[in-house]
């Protein structure tokens, strides 16, 4: 029983961070129709930016967070403006490829400036552990779950209530109709990329705090794909369900079956879902006419 609760906590922590990473991915896809293969690198860059502010520049935590948010927003907007804007109207293959090129570029830049060895940063999340039904659960995992939950709720409220959130949903629904209602589609595109970069930053910092700040953070980002396929590419609640499911599945496979198998199980699930229900649990089925 105690192992089970332990696994549960680890899986939920991983899962909620995955949900955060996937949220950015879904935002971009929903608003702009772009599949962003560089989402993992957004996590990576975010984690290193925060590291730079917090450790290298030695800023206080609050300022470091602000610095990270500003830089992430800037990167998101720049990427949209410089790389994705010229690609409007190209075929999906080219758009996928351009984000792959971007991921290679971002990865290389991080590697050039920070090297490949992992960096330690002072703990942000509280350490220690609590006793839950006989299992010792580290507090930082619980904190990660809490932070992810708060951020995800904030984003959901933003889409439901705020003007920009509603405008984003309108653009996702029908770009032309949104334009005729006076919504600036360009601004919404930039906003989507900025928000994606911000949610990736938060996810990246959480991963960096739980393990270490190194290149593996980008690999964590690849897991976004099973998550969004499971939940549905264009569904925000889908990312949460998908993230938690994949996180738990991975953790339970690692705990009860085989740690090696855990790295590949999300992708096996991915293929199965694509064969059975390609648009995921909450995804919208697209009907095409010529």
């Amino acid at each position, binding site marked *: 029983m105690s192992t089970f609760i332990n696994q549960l906590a680890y899986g939920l922590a991983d899962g909620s961070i995955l949900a955060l990473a996937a949220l950015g991915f879904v935002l971009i*896809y929903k608003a702009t129709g772009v*599949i962003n293969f560089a989402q993992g690198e957004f996590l990576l860059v975010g984690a290193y930016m925060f590291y730079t502010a917090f450790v290298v520049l030695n800023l206080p935590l609050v300022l470091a967070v602000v610095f990270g948010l500003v830089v992430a927003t800037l990167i998101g907007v720049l990427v949209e403006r410089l*790389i994705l804007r*010229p*690609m409007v109207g*190209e*075929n*999906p*293959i*080219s758009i*996928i*490829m*351009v984000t*792959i*090129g*971007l*991921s*290679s*570029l*971002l*990865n*290389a*830049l991080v*590697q*050039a400036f920070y090297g490949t060895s992992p960096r330690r940063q002072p703990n942000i999340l509280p350490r220690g552990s609590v006793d839950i039904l006989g299992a010792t659960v580290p507090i930082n995992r619980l904190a990660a779950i809490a932070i992810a939950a708060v951020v995800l709720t904030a984003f959901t409220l933003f889409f439901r209530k705020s003007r920009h959130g509603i405008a984003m949903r309108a653009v996702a629904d029908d770009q032309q109709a949104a334009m005729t209602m006076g919504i600036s589609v360009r601004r919404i595109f930039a906003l989507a990329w900025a928000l994606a970069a911000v949610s990736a930053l938060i996810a990246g910092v959480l991963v960096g705090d739980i393990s270490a700040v190194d290149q593996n953070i980008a690999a964590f980002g*690849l897991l976004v*794909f*099973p998550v969004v*396929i499971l939940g549905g*590419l264009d569904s925000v609640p889908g990312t949460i369900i998908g993230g938690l499911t994949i996180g738990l599945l991975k953790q339970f496979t690692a705990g009860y079956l085989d740690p*090696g198998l855990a*790295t*590949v199980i999300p*992708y*096996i699930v*991915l*293929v199965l879902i*694509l*064969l059975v229900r*390609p648009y995921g649990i909450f995804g919208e089925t697209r009907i*095409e*006419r*010529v």
Partner: protein
Amino acid sequence: MAATATGIHHRSYSSELRLRATRAEYVRLGLLTLLLLLLPFILDNYWLSQANLILIAVIGAVGLNILVGYTGQISLGQGGFLAVGAYSSAILSDRMGLPTPIAILLAVLLTAAVGTFFGLPGLRLKGLYLAIATLASQMIIEFVIRRWDWLTLGQGYLNIDRLDVFGFQIGGRAVFEQQWYWILLVLASLSVITARNLFRTGLGRSFMAVRDQDIAAEAIGVNIPRAKLMAFAISSGFVGLAGALTAHYSEVLSWEKFTLDVSILYLAMIIVGGLGSIAGAVYGAIFMTLLPELIRQLSLGLGDSVPFIADQLPAVRNAVFGLVIILFLILEPRGLDRIWHRIKDYFGFWPFRY
């Protein structure tokens, strides 16, 4: 379309169907053939090994372009399919004792089968979804190779005997690259010719119809599932050949040679060369294989003035790699092939602008 093709007056169907119509095209082909035949006598062993790597890459890139460029089905599973070809050929020839040519042939067929299997999601999906499906196939194949001990004798590494074709053995260091060059040149040329002619057949045409507008294609009677699966099978066959040749040429296999990065490298080749162009796949294979070498040379030259580049060579290489993909897609989405056509047109029309 290239402007050089205009102004030619065809008098028979056979002349219209010819791949090359003007004398200039025949002359260029002749010169190219001559150059290819002379290369092993001009280049030293190191550059000849680069040429061999290019020839293998040509086969793989042509195969991938059949799927991505001509059928419009993006695949991130190239690395995995290369691995299937490489490992199956190695196991069949070395451990099962089959003659190498037969092992390679079986490896090609096996890779075609595996490719078709992972192409199955493509029947219901396209574009982004298919990209993700093939990404999963890459991960799964990589995992199988790393973990299935019987297959790879643990750790995913495998040693392979020197190539031995019915008693003829590849020689030692001095002639090794040269002998391989001839083998690879023949196979790469055959692959290019086969692929080029594939798109003059009904099947090849149906691939392009699927790419351009699949629903309309179905309405005019193209069998879409058949076209999609055949595209996966044929493309994976080429990739399997490239994988098998990689195995026998390098004589050591490790799973690191077939990661997601390799899939991306091959996609970069066909993007940079030109999607939906066989010649483009060849240009792309040459360009992307030589790129790291170019950067290395450049960093040696700049080493004194800009030590940063020399210190961070692997990172710089990846950065340039990413940048090249992005710039090509934004500035010349149809790649080197289109640039080459523009150069030809420029001289064809000179001194007029158009």
